[in-house]
């Protein structure tokens, strides 16, 4: 048994030690991310199958996506993973100010990403490329049905990703509040760590989405 004269204030009553508690939290987040892989995995499977069947229609549809904006977004999101990692690092060093600065930076970058995404969505709306909503594909009409499938997948996959980002930013707000209140600190930082894990996962999903959606047939 551990010999604490006073238990750490963050130690929950059902755990025997802070170590046990933090390990449990970490394992819990990894398990959760595993479920997210299966969740997005279903979508990636659907994408893979349809792209295999209709490669030309998919390539054609992919060319309607905005590569400069997508590339900026990729850089923004990777940057936000960096700032998030810095926030975790600050937490390990017990720097409350560092945690808060880096979390705010991460949220700023996340907001930039979402803003650009919103811009792209509005472009698609004006170009009549939202399936089911007066979808038009006049330039290459032979691909209209299968291009609709591409765009259906585009909106569901990036939409779900964006929803995950919004949740992530909510979690970060929560972490800001806890840090300000002093709950985080003094050796207790696993909440920040596991929010960081979540955010890195969201980043990795985008790293797969970007080439699969934006870069079809763009090599050479």
């Amino acid at each position: 048994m551990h010999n604490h004269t006073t238990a750490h204030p963050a130690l929950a009553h059902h755990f025997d030690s802070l170590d046990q508690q933090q390990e449990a939290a970490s394992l819990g987040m990894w398990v959760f991310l595993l479920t997210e892989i299966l969740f997005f995995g279903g979508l990636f499977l659907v994408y893979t199958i349809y792209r295999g069947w209709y490669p030309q229609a998919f390539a054609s549809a992919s060319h309607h996506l905005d590569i400069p904006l997508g590339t900026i977004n990729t850089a923004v999101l990777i940057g936000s993973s960096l700032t998030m990692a810095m926030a975790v690092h600050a937490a390990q060093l017990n720097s409350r100010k560092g945690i808060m600065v880096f979390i705010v930076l991460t949220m700023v970058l996340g907001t930039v990403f979402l803003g650009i995404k919103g811009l792209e969505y509005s472009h698609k709306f004006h170009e009549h490329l939202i399936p089911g909503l007066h979808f038009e594909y006049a330039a290459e009409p032979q691909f209209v049905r299968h291009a609709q499938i591409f765009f259906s997948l585009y909106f569901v996959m990036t939409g779900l990703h964006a929803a995950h980002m919004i949740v992530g930013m909510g979690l970060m707000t929560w972490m800001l509040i806890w840090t300000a209140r002093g709950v985080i600190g003094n050796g207790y930082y696993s909440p920040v760590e596991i929010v960081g894990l979540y955010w890195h996962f969201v980043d990795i999903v985008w790293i797969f989405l970007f080439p699969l959606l934006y870069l079809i047939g763009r090599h050479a």
Partner: protein
Amino acid sequence: MFDIPLFPERASTIAGEVDALYFFLVGLSGFFALLIATLIVAFAIRFRRRHADEVGAQVHGGLLLEIGWTVIPFIITMVIFFWGAKVYFAMANPPDETLNIYVVGKQWMWKVQHVTGQREINELHVPVGRPVRLIMTSEDVIHDFSIPAMRIKADVIPGRFVQIWFEPTNAGTYQIFCAEYCGTQHSAMIGRVSVMEPAAYQAWLSGGTAEGSLASRGEKLFADLACNTCHRPDARGRGPWLAGVFGHSVQLQDSSVVTADENYLRESIMQPAAKVTAGFQPVMPAFQGLITEEQLLALIEYVKSLSPAEQPQAQPAGTQR
């Protein structure tokens, strides 16, 4: 009053094979179920607790037994697997010479189209002793064409063809059911197969229809829909000439090769841009939504008639993309 059927009739060549496997499984299951039931009841009685503090023998396991009752079930299940696969192969591989009949399912009826031109609703007339191949599709949702007496069924899927085959062995009428839930009147989507002696079947056939055979209807449609303006034998044709296409390989624009079966013909009419023949441009309009399933069948049968009487490579009971 007690004429309760407990076992279905057998009306096809495959039925006996299915039943043989079934009876083996019934015997096997009966044996093991009885064995386990007897053992647990016997143990419950023989070793019943005689006083409140009694405990059982503190035995933890036996490796030999574990291996035994792992290996023996494994062997038995593999025997069943191979036997079942054998029966399945027979179901999935029709003979080369079959009488082809088209079936279209829709909410809530079966439309049968003979190549000689006859149409039936919820009825299917076939001759005894000749292998019949049903080429089937759906106009709306997934249905399932099931003939229990023949021991065969297959889901019919909108947007593609599936095939099953059977060889009737006894004249008579047998139940057709729709066996995939399809909405309000799913249980009313039933019919009858009439298996007839050859002479009676010939008589039935010759009460034909004024419209002529399915292929001749297709030929007419081919002209009406202006297919023949592009699909011509001369060099000015913007589409490939279709004689000899069905049943053979086709090279596509992206260098891949496909077999021109019924599903290929279907897709080439409905969504031609999906597979463009090498050397041609993707200029053919899509006929999805412009023609009915019956018209599609007529066109396909016409294109098939342009090939020498040859079936494609054996089509399994499922479909392959």
